[in-house]
C-alpha cells in the first residue's frame, strides 16, 4: 500500500452560495460540529508525517473559517503545497494579503458563468461581481489564477464566453469539468445532464479556443462520464493516492463517500478517535474497496480493471444502492440501463423545457461550545424556497 499524496480538507460546509450542482452531502446538518483549529492542525501534521504533499482547502466555502490564515500558515510550515478552493466570497484584500503572507501556494476560484444574471442565478446568490474582484485580487497579489467551472446543461453552451472571460482575467489555468452527480447534484441530475448536441458544441469550442489561446492558458476539459463508454479511474482507486476529511472529522476515501460510508455500517473512521495513520492503513472503511478482491464480474475478469478500478464506488452506490457493483457508467455493467435512461431523458425532444435547480441548503455553523449535535432531519432536507417556485 502506497502512502497518500493528497488530502482534501473540507473545512466547513457553510457557504454563502447555493449552487444546485454542489457536491456537498444532502444531510448538511450532520456536519456542523466542525473540527477546531487545533484539531485541523493536528490532522495536517499527521498528514505530512504520512507522506501527504498536497493539501486542498475546500468546503463549502473555506473562507468562512475565521482561522483559515492560521491553518494555511501551519500547513505551509509543514512543507505542504496549499491550494485554496474558493467561491471568492470572503476574499477581502486584507484576507488575501494575510493568506499570501502565510504562504498559500495557489487559489482556485469557482466560476458559474460569464454573465452576471446567469451566474447569480446558478449560485442563487448575488456573487458574480465579487468573483471578478476576487480574480483581480488573486492576480494582483501574484498568485497563479485557476478558474474552476463546473459544467452542466445550464452553462455548457457558454463555454466560449467563459473562456473569453478567463482570457480577460489573465487566468493561467481553466478547469472545465462536467458535473459528477454527488450530493446536491444527485436530485438535480435531470436538470444538469447536458444533451449530446450541447457536448459536441462544447468540445468544438474548447478545441478552437485551445488553438487560438495556445500556451497562455492551460485548458482542462473533463467530459461527463455518462456519455463515455468506460468509467473514470475514480480517485486512482479506492484509498490509493488521496483522501478527504470532512468538517466533523470523518475521513473518507472519496470526497463523495458520505452516504456510502454510513451505509456500510463500519466503525467510523474519524480523526477525533483515530490517527490518520490508522485510518489510512487499517480502518475497515479504507480497506473495504482497496485493491481488487472486492470486485464482482464483469470487472473481476476484465483487463481494464487496472486502468479504471471498476469506476466510482460512490456512483455505484448512488445509482444501485450497492457500492460494490460495477460503475453503471461502464457499458459492460449490468446496471448500465440506468445511465442510458438518464441520457435518453436528457436528449428526449419531448422533454419539458429546462426547469430550475433545487438550491443547495444553507447551513449554519455550530460553535463547539453550543455543543449538541443537531437532530437528524428525516429524509432529504430539500426546502421549496421561493427561488424554486419562481422558476426561471
Amino acid at each position: 500500500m502506497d502512502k497518500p499524496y493528497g488530502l482534501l480538507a473540507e473545512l466547513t460546509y457553510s457557504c454563502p452560495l447555493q449552487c444546485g450542482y454542489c457536491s456537498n452531502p444532502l444531510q448538511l446538518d450532520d456536519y456542523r460540529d466542525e473540527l477546531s483549529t487545533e484539531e485541523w492542525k493536528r490532522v495536517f501534521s499527521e498528514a505530512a508525517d504520512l507522506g501527504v504533499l498536497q493539501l486542498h482547502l475546500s468546503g463549502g466555502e473555506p473562507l468562512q473559517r475565521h482561522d483559515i490564515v492560521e491553518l494555511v500558515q501551519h500547513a505551509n510550515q509543514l512543507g505542504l503545497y496549499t491550494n485554496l478552493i474558493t467561491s471568492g466570497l470572503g476574499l477581502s484584500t486584507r484576507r488575501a494579503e494575510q493568506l499570501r503572507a502565510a504562504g498559500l501556494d495557489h487559489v482556485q476560484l469557482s466560476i458559474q458563468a460569464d454573465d452576471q444574471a446567469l451566474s447569480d442565478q446558478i449560485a442563487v446568490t448575488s456573487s458574480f461581481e465579487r468573483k471578478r474582484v476576487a480574480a483581480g485580487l488573486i492576480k494582483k497579489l501574484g498568485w497563479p489564477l485557476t478558474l474552476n467551472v463546473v459544467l452542466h446543461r445550464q452553462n455548457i453552451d457558454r463555454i466560449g464566453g467563459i473562456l473569453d472571460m478567463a482570457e480577460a482575467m489573465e487566468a493561467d489555468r481553466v478547469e472545465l469539468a462536467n458535473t459528477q452527480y454527488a450530493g446536491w447534484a444527485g436530485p438535480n441530475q435531470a436538470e444538469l445532464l447536458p444533451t449530446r448536441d450541447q457536448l459536441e458544441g462544447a468540445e468544438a469550442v474548447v478545441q478552437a479556443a485551445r488553438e487560438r489561446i495556445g500556451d497562455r492558458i492551460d485548458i482542462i476539459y473533463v467530459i461527463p462520464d455518462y456519455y463515455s463508454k468506460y468509467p473514470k479511474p475514480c480517485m486512482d482507486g479506492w484509498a490509493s493516492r488521496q483522501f478527504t476529511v470532512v468538517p466533523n472529522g470523518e475521513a473518507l476515501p472519496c470526497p463523495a463517500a458520505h452516504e456510502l460510508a454510513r451505509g456500510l455500517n463500519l466503525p467510523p473512521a474519524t480523526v477525533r478517535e483515530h490517527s490518520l495513520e490508522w485510518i489510512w492503513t487499517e480502518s475497515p472503511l479504507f480497506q473495504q474497496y482497496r485493491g481488487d478482491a472486492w470486485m464482482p464480474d464483469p470487472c473481476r475478469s476484465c483487463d481494464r480493471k487496472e486502468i479504471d478500478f471498476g469506476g466510482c464506488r460512490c456512483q455505484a452506490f448512488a445509482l444501485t444502492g450497492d457500492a460494490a457493483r460495477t460503475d453503471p457508467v461502464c457499458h459492460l455493467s449490468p446496471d448500465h440501463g440506468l445511465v442510458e435512461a438518464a441520457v435518453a431523458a436528457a436528449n428526449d425532444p419531448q422533454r419539458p423545457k429546462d426547469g430550475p435547480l433545487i438550491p443547495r441548503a444553507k447551513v449554519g455553523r455550530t460553535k463547539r461550545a453550543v455543543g449538541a449535535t443537531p437532530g437528524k432531519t428525516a429524509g432529504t432536507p430539500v426546502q421549496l424556497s421561493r427561488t424554486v417556485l419562481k422558476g426561471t
Partner: protein
Amino acid sequence: MDITDPTARPRLAPHVRMVFNAARGEHALLSPETVWVINATGAAIVELCDSQRTIAEIGAELRGRYDQVADGDVQRFVADLVTKHGMEVDHG
C-alpha cells in the same frame, strides 16, 4: 521556437513548487492537481532552472557534477515538463 532549443531559459511554472518529502525520501514537483515524483538528477536540474541559465548551461553544469548526465537529458526533462505545463521557457 522549439522548446528543446539549447538557448532557452527554463523555470518552473508559477504554480509549481519543488519539495523534498522526508516521509517518502523523494523529491516531487507539486502543482494544484498533480504530483510529479522526480529523482535526484531531476531535482538538480530543477534547481538550476532559474530563468537565467540556458538549457546548454544547465547541461554543462550538471556534467561537471555527475557522470551520468547524457546529452539531451536536460532537454528531454524540460520539454516533458513544458508540455505538461509544469515549466515555462524564455527564449533568447
